[in-house]
């Protein structure tokens, strides 16, 4: 018997293994490897091995001594080509603006330079090497791991006295996170306001009517988000149907700008995400019998009290599940804001894409992705906990 059990388990694992390995290799490992880029500093440390080994001994105040200048000169001469120099410059520029030109000028200067490397030679090529601030950056970044990008995605940086906020004119990401959260909250609330009556009517109608309504909710649910966003662009454009109808009705004189702004984002995202709220809410509402509400009404409770004290608590799990689902999905939205939003309406996903494909800053892309993933995972964990607790209570 025990042997049969063991065999059963073995076969089970053999059946699960292909998916497990596939998902690990093509899904989990890529995400893990990518997220590690948020703290990864090997590109920099690997490009300047001699300098990094020396710079720990420097006091951070005075001009570094000759051996450190020598090390830096040797590291720069050892760079294989101008592409390597450019990527080193770009990397250091993340810490201090202007570093890119410093690196490039030093690299090309050293190529033409003859004679001994060292303090004199480097300062002759670029005077900025006599400024300890530029050396402090290298000293600060001498470890294989760097908090630079994670701090930067929260508008923070490392100063001489520890972590501090960056100057207001360069701040960007806290604003972005707040905007992302705000758009998601607004869309969630809109979905709740629209979805609640719809789900309620679906659940309280007869089986025939309710299954027809279900089909009408499932239709957009199955249709690709891109197609639905496209449809909204067509409807909301300057001479689109919505503006035409409003003008015909005499409600407006000139076409409204309904798209490429925040309003367009709210409309299209609410439309796309509404089924995700209606479906779970509907299934909970359908499970709630009318017995308790009838009993409460029979005992003399006014309808508003019945609704608030009896009905609402019963459907609360559906509201929580639907709202969390919509909120979490909205947090990561990319396509819809990209197509119907303006530059000021882009969410965190847009910047992850931007840092990946336009500015090729893996550190920032991975940091923002890490923050987004953390928010999503925390919310899901909280939801699982909540729903789990609810089940316990029901028992």
């Amino acid at each position: 018997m025990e042997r049969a059990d063991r065999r059963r388990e073995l076969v089970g694992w053999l059946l699960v293994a292909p998916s497990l390995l596939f998902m690990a290799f093509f899904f989990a490992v890529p995400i893990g490897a990518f997220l590690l880029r948020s703290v990864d500093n090997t590109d920099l440390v690997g490009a300047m091995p001699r300098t990094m080994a020396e710079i720990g001994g420097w006091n951070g105040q005075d001009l570094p001594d000759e051996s450190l200048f020598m090390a830096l000169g040797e590291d720069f001469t050892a760079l294989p080509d101008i592409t390597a120099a450019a990527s080193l410059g770009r990397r250091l520029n993340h810490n201090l603006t202007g570093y890119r030109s410093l690196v490039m000028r030093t690299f090309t200067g050293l190529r033409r330079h003859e004679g001994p490397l060292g303090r004199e030679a480097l300062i002759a090529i670029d005077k900025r090497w006599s400024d300890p601030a530029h050396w402090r950056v290298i000293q600060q970044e001498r470890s294989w791991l760097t908090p630079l990008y994670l701090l930067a995605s929260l508008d923070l940086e490392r100063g001489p006295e520890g972590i501090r906020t960056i100057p207001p004119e360069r701040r960007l990401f806290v604003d972005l996170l707040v905007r992302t959260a705000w758009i998601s909250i607004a869309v969630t609330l809109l979905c709740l306001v629209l979805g609640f009556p719809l789900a309620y009517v679906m659940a309280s109608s007869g089986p025939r009517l309710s299954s027809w309504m279900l089909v009408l909710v499932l239709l957009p649910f199955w249709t690709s988000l891109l197609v639905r966003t496209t449809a909204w662009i067509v409807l909301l454009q300057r001479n689109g149907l919505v503006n035409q109808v409003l003008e015909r009705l005499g409600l407006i004189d000139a076409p409204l700008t309904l798209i490429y702004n925040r309003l367009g984002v709210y409309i299209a995202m609410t439309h796309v995400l509404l089924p995700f709220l209606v479906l779970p809410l509907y299934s909970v509402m359908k499970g709630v019998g009318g017995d308790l509400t009838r009993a409460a009404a029979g005992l003399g409770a006014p309808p508003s009290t019945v609704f608030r004290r009896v009905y609402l608590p019963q459907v609360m799990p559906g509201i929580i599940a639907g709202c969390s689902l919509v909120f979490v999905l909205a947090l990561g939205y990319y396509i819809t804001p990209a197509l119907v939003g303006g530059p000021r309406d882009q969410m965190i996903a847009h910047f992850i894409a931007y840092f990946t494909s336009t500015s090729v800053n893996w550190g920032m892309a991975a940091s923002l992705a890490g923050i987004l993933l953390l928010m999503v995972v925390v919310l899901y964990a909280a939801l699982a906990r909540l729903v789990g607790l609810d089940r316990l209570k029901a028992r």
Partner: protein
Amino acid sequence: MAGAPNQASLVERLVFRGTRIAALVILVVLVAPMIVIVPLSLTSGTLLIYPLPGLSGRWYEEFFTERLWVQATWNSVLIAVPTTVLATTLGTFAALGLNRLRSRLVPAVAVFLITPLIVPVIIYAVSAFYFYSRLGIVGTYPGLIFGHTALAIPFVVVTVNATLKNFDANLLRAALVLGATPRQAFARVTLPLILPGVLSGGLFAFITSFDELILTLFVASPEQRTLPRQLWSGVQETINPTIAAAAVVLMLVSVLVMLLAEWLRRQGRRIQGKQ
């Protein structure tokens, strides 16, 4: 005493009536954008506005003859079909395995297999771009197929798992007691009973890949431009009726898949209901 209940029921009736009307309006708004675009794709003019100057199939003709759109349609099929086969096979095996296992690790494994439903696709897309380029499969068909398969597996696992939960294990025991070999029992009892679930899992996998855009944006090269990818660049360049035609084609595929899935669900219920 006489007036109060009446008043309450009048308010109640009004609220109820109001809710019904609101629900109806919301339902119309939910479906309207997709309905409205259908006549626009049949316009004889060049603008996507009402009233239509006349009806014509010219934009569908353009869609089905213009090289970019034809190639995109082919690419979508070339990627979605292998994805469907791969995801359905792997996902069905996994669901069967999960159902067999008694291990304490089962919940963790199940959660791991559905993480693509939780992780925002943008994170997966840029990660795939980053990692697949090291494997040398960015800008290749296998790269996209593997990428889409990972997104599709959870749907198959969930669908087949739901079917297996309703599966009456006594039937399998009966077959074994009556002398069937485990292989025969699987082929003649288990498989026919879970087949509708497997097929609807496959439909989910197909539509996941066929409609996928974000991963495609990062992992595909121009050579692997799919229909959603082509639509995406079309929407950003100029909104013309060919785009409406493409959107309608994509929508029709979705509706077809939805109807098939619904039919399969009913079949599945019927077969399992017979027990």
